[in-house]
């Protein structure tokens, strides 16, 4: 079944999801923190737009609420909090030197292919729309993971974490017409608390290593001699 035979609304959802995936690539390679936060905000807006379109197409009315929640949380609140933190940590002009940018992007491409390969068995059930959307959201999740592995800057790692959550929302909304409301609220609450805690940790990390380059957090290894006295 080719994509052009899908209903227009589904095609539109796929388009928005593909743009969200594109923004994942932008996030992955964007060295400037502030620009990366903006890219993340746009990704949140896209996920919220997908939710809205699915709500318009279907009968699940709580999706309107969930679209508003996603927009408020992922499009506005979390980017704003990150922005404020970056300013307070005076990192506004911070640019991170990326290690092997070309290699990382290639790895991300491979992850997209892997996602499609993983959901390939679902094609047998004639689920052209769902298969694409699940693959795209899985790719967003995996690229978020890749970003957390390859970026050394704590704020960039948090962006990776949050874009993973975006991918999960995308999967929940478009493949299944939204999780039950109580779950969605719970997940949103967890994400919000996580963001607040990340903020606390930025300051704790900077206090302890005088930088937010998490690579320099390397005191805990297996065979290392224990030097400091610890309170137990």
């Amino acid at each position: 079944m080719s994509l052009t035979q899908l209903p227009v609304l589904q095609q539109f959802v796929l388009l928005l999801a593909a743009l969200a995936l594109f923004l994942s690539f932008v996030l992955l390679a964007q060295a400037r923190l502030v620009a990366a936060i903006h890219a993340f905000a746009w990704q949140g807006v896209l996920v919220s737009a997908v939710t809205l379109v699915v709500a318009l197409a279907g009968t699940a009315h709580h999706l309107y609420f969930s679209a508003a929640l996603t927009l408020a949380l992922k499009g506005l609140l979390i980017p704003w909090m990150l922005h404020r933190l970056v300013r307070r940590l005076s990192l506004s002009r911070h640019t991170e030197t990326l290690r092997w940018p070309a290699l990382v992007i290639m790895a991300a491409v491979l992850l997209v292919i892997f996602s499609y390969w993983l959901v390939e068995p679902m094609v047998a059930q004639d689920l052209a729309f769902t298969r694409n959307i699940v693959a795209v959201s899985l790719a967003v999740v995996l690229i978020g993971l890749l970003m957390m592995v390859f970026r050394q800057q704590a704020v960039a790692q948090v962006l990776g974490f949050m874009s993973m959550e975006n991918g999960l929302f995308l999967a929940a909304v478009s493949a299944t017409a939204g999780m039950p409301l109580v779950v969605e609220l719970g997940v949103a609450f967890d994400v919000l608390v996580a963001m607040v805690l990340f903020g606390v940790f930025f300051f704790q990390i900077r206090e302890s290593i005088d930088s937010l380059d998490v690579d320099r957090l390397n005191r805990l290894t297996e065979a290392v001699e224990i030097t400091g006295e610890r309170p137990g």
Partner: protein
Amino acid sequence: MTALLLTLLAPLLGGLTLALLRPLALAGWFNLAVSLITLGGAAWLAWLVAVSGMIAGMGFRVDAFNVYLVVLTAFVGVTTSIFSRPYMRHVCSTGKISAGSLRVYHSMYQAFMLTMLVALTTDNLGVLWVAIEGATLATVLLVSLYRTPEAVEAAWKYFILCGVGIALALFGTVLTYFAAQHVIADPAAGLTWSALYERAHELNPTVMRIAFVFLLVGYGTKVGLVPMHQWLPDAHSEGPTPMSAVLSGLLLNVALYAVVRLKMLVDGSLAETATPHLAGSLLMGFGLVSFTVAGLFLHRQRDIKRMFSYSSIEHMGLMTFAFGLGGSLATFGALLHMLVHSLTKSAIFVTVGHATHLAGTQAIERIRGLIRTQPAIGWSLLFGVVAIAGFPPFGVFTSEFLLLTATMQSQPWFTVALVSGLAVAFAGLFRHLHPMVYGAAPEGQQPVQANMLPVLLHLGLVLWLGLSIPDFLATWLDRATGLITGTRLL
């Protein structure tokens, strides 16, 4: 239902009150009181379940399997709060943490208990996820409580790794929900475990297979399965010791509980396909690798809390293996092992907490002569390690013996790996233990104030379970085994 509400509301309200409670001397006692109320609620709940078989409603489901973990969680919660009251005041009085941090500690302690209990009692896979993620959030600030560079690093690692793991578990949950939508018409019921379990054979096996891999990797991160275990030794060794006790004794169990519940769904879905035991085989593989690797890592540890956290990984690996093996004997053994491991390991961490205060360090090579300086601590540590290494007459021996018998029955070749793994772990523990307990005490080492009541209680129970398992408990575990495997043992 009232019992359940009591069990859940006590830590909720207690946690909120503790966040605001100013007098620090009171906070420790209040924490203990809240834990006691929770235990009362849990015991009541257990009695109701014993009478009626199952309590369900309002999105909760309490049956023989989870109520036993609820009681265990509440019980370890009480004994650890007995230990933590003087311990944390000691830490606070030495100026390592501020009064505000102590308030955070108490409040988050109850928040953690709440998330554990919600995760256990909920019937909704989504809420289960939210609660287990909530447990990470509640404990992550406690890991960094001392604010040393090591503690902050451990907490960040814990946060990031568990965050990633748990995100993968959510993806698995979404896929499960996706599979459910083709089976269950009502979208609101699509994540309800009992509804899914009734119609598990109709769930699409292809989707469930992919979903289970994500769920296993996700929740497996929290169980501490190798190779996703990296956060565990760091978080256990850098956080305050009462936290290590509840992390090891409770969090790992609850994560494993989630894996077992999901395995039951996947088994139902895959029953008619070419690979009916896929979930079990995956669990066996991950379990055996964790068991072996952790046993080897025990040998090279230099930090006492790190060492015992590797021992936790080892035991979680053994349980995961047993649940993967399936069958009523292995499952009964695994359930019993969950119980005795939690009790023994939290007793060990309590003792280790006192030992580190005594020696003023966590470095194994500088903890010496415990028996000479303070026999209570020395003997407790010795008996705790004897128990955890699986010596008779302690309960761990009983459960490990059952597990080995079950393995011998169905997969005899794995017995070799298990027995040699147990021997390696035993050697690893004792080569470090011996000098710590018997070695010459450094000059000027003074006894510390220690409350050994939790240790005595836990080790006494483990000893009792090793000598004779009381009838009601055997019936209870047997009913849980019946729920998980479909056939009873006794």
